[in-house]
């Protein structure tokens, strides 16, 4: 114990617990981690390559522009070169024309010179407008005055005022200027051509490089994407599997926590149905329960724990079991819910639950309802519908010490009580009152057989589909008659006797027993049960079973326990067995290894004259 005292338990919040289920315990295999690393690396590589390709492409663009500029400059410069030649030809023809007999076309050479000079200048301006490498620009700048001078000289020589003789004399000088300039200009043209070719080669190389980079980048990106997709697919599949598993566990748990079959309670007709949500991932904390209580009463539970996961289902199971225990101990309905609430705080359950706990007394035909924040039970009568106990009280686990109140109503003949969870109402947008009105309307016209009623209400309220939230619905109706055969299991506790007698009395009443007969048979049966309670079990209580059978006028009552009777002790004991023998036609007590069976038989008198006096 001392050892154990030092152990501390760290509480894990539910969300964290869930995360650990999904992630840490999922143990993503190493292979998947490698896929992740490869994918990431390939993405990084792709980014680098694409970046490179981008700069490459920029270079390609720059190179192409330079090639275009150089080509354009070369073209313009070659044009200028041609004008240079043309000007010389013009001047030459002007000198020759201006000779002996050529005044026929006066001014023609001058006009042609002017025209070609203008073109020459325009070509040079075109070259100036182009952005060229500095070395080339320098060459061009240096040559420019020579060119201007040459043009001006051509204009002057071809001018109309010029004396033909003078012209002829100056021609050799002009020819020299022409030749000198021609060499210079040819050199520049050649240089332009070479540079343009070089630039084109560089641009071509850059383009090829960029194209290769792009292809490499594309392949890398593709591989990376494939790797990442594979990884993501696997992760998603693992997660989906976990979620499905968790959901599966929660749903199985939920199913296990709902009663597999409702107990067969004498004088009570019961039907219930649970419908899981359409999404399937919403496992609800909805629960319902039917408890056979010590006094022949029936405990009805309809609850809803907040949340839709495994945790909610687990806490729901705790509440359900605790409620069962409290109720079966014979705690009053108010006390049951107050103790349940105390348990929530005492055990630090994170949950809040709405819950209706109702106790139906089939003999007295009363229903006692305590409603902890849940939707109110609906009482259906042949001609009207009423919600029971609609006064709001706090849900279980919400307030530290709530004082619940119970309301008891006498159930009218041919009535049915409906208990349900909010999923029945929540076609989300609908307001609470609207939902209640709709249920009342739907239930009013429903068949009164409990099974059919449940099916009908579910079908109409859910429009024939699956609900968004899960739904539990239970219908309970006190039967008009107990019938010829009644079997009940009672807690071996003195408090059970009253309920037992009331059931026996009702059964006898149905059998047509007279008042005295009824009293005597009831005493005999109660004596047998008293023996089971007093003698069969030690302090840990057990159960006894009562079986009532009527065949015509013959009654057989069997009380069975699973203990071993201790011999009667103290004064005035043993009178019970004597009473049983005196009051019944037959009373057999059989003690066996499995327990004791008391069989009581009596044939009822014909109903005519009231029978008085003790028999036997």
């Amino acid at each position: 114990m001392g050892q154990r005292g030092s152990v501390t338990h760290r509480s894990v919040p539910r969300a964290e617990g869930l995360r650990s289920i999904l992630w840490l315990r999922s143990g993503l295999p190493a292979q998947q981690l490698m896929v992740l690393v490869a994918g990431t690396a390939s993405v990084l590589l792709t980014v680098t390559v694409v970046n490179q390709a981008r700069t490459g492409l920029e270079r390609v663009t720059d190179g192409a522009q330079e090639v275009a500029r150089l080509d354009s400059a070369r073209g313009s410069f070659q044009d200028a070169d041609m004008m240079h030649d043309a000007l010389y030809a013009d001047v030459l023809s002007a000198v020759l024309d201006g000779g002996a007999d050529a005044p026929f076309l006066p001014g023609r050479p001058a006009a042609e010179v002017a025209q070609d000079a203008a073109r020459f200048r325009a070509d040079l301006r075109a070259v100036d407008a182009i952005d060229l490498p500095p070395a080339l620009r320098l060459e061009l700048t240096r040559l420019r005055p020579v060119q201007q001078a040459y043009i001006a000289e051509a204009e002057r020589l071809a001018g109309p005022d010029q004396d033909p003789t003078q012209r002829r004399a100056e021609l050799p000088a002009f020819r020299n200027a022409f030749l000198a300039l021609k060499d210079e200009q040819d050199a520049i043209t050649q240089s332009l051509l070479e540079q343009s070719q070089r630039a084109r080669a560089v641009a071509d190389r850059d383009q090829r490089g960029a194209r290769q980079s792009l292809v490499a980048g594309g392949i890398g990106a593709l591989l990376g994407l494939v790797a990442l997709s594979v990884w993501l697919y696997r992760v998603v599949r693992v997660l989906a599997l976990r979620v499905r598993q968790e959901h599966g566990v929660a749903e199985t748990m939920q199913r296990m926590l709902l009663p597999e079959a409702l107990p067969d309670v004498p004088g009570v007709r019961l039907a219930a149905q649970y419908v899981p949500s359409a999404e399937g991932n919403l496992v609800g904390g909805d629960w319902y329960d039917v408890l056979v209580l010590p006094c022949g009463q029936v405990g009805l539970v309809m609850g809803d724990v907040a949340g839709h996961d495994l945790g909610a289902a687990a806490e729901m199971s705790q509440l359900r079991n605790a409620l069962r225990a409290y109720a079966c101990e014979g705690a009053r309905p108010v006390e049951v819910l107050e103790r349940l609430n105390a348990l929530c705080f005492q055990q630090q359950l994170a949950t809040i639950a709405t819950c209706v706990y109702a106790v139906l007394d089939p003999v007295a035909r009363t229903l006692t309802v305590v409603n902890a924040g849940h939707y109110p039970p609906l009482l259906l009568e042949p001609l009207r519908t009423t919600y029971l106990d609609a006064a709001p009280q706090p849900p279980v686990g919400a307030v530290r010490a709530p004082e619940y109140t119970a309301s008891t109503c006498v159930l009218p003949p041919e009535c049915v009580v409906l208990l349900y969870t909010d999923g029945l109402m929540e076609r989300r947008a609908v307001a609470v009152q609207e939902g209640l009105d709709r249920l009342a309307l739907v239930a009013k016209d429903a068949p009164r057989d409990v099974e059919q009623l449940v099916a009908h209400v579910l079908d109409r309220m859910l429009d024939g589909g699956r609900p968004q939230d899960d739904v539990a619905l239970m219908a309970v109706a006190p039967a008009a008659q107990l019938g010829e055969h009644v079997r009940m299991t009672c807690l071996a506790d003195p408090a059970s006797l009253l309920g037992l007698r009331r059931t026996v009395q009702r059964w006898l009443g149905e059998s047509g027993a007279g008042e005295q007969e009824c009293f005597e048979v009831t005493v005999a049966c109660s004596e047998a049960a008293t023996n089971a309670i007093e003698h069969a079990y030690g302090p840990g209580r057990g159960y006894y079973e009562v079986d009532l059978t009527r065949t015509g006028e013959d009654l057989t009552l069997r009380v069975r326990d699973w203990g071993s009777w201790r011999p009667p002790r103290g004064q005035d004991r043993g009178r019970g067995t004597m009473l049983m023998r005196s009051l019944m036609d037959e009373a057999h007590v059989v003690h066996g290894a499995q327990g004791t069976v008391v069989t009581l038989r009596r044939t009822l008198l014909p109903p005519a004259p009231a029978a008085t006096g003790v028999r036997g």
Partner: protein
Amino acid sequence: MIRNEVSLWRQDGWTVAVPEGDIDLGTVEDLASRIERGVGNDSSGLVLDLSRVTYLDSTGLRLLFRLSRQLASRQQALRVVVPPDSLLRPLLSLAGVGSAVPLFSSSVQALEHRPST
């Protein structure tokens, strides 16, 4: 715990107790202790009126015998009232209560009774 209503009062030097409802294993102890406490030492005895008792079995019979013994040991008397048409009467006869405890049809009769001795 189911508790039976029981009315207790003093009349003509006697303690009158009128329990109601079912007397069985579940209710008898509580009822017994309340009745026993209600009978003072100065009381001539107890008139136990069973006219409002709806059920009684061997545990109730046991109570009658026990009260009878206890009161006798204190020189006090027990008188039990059972109306003539009561369902309990045949049961009391069957158990031989009448031979140990005087039975009366009403509490008035029980209080007015003067023993012949």
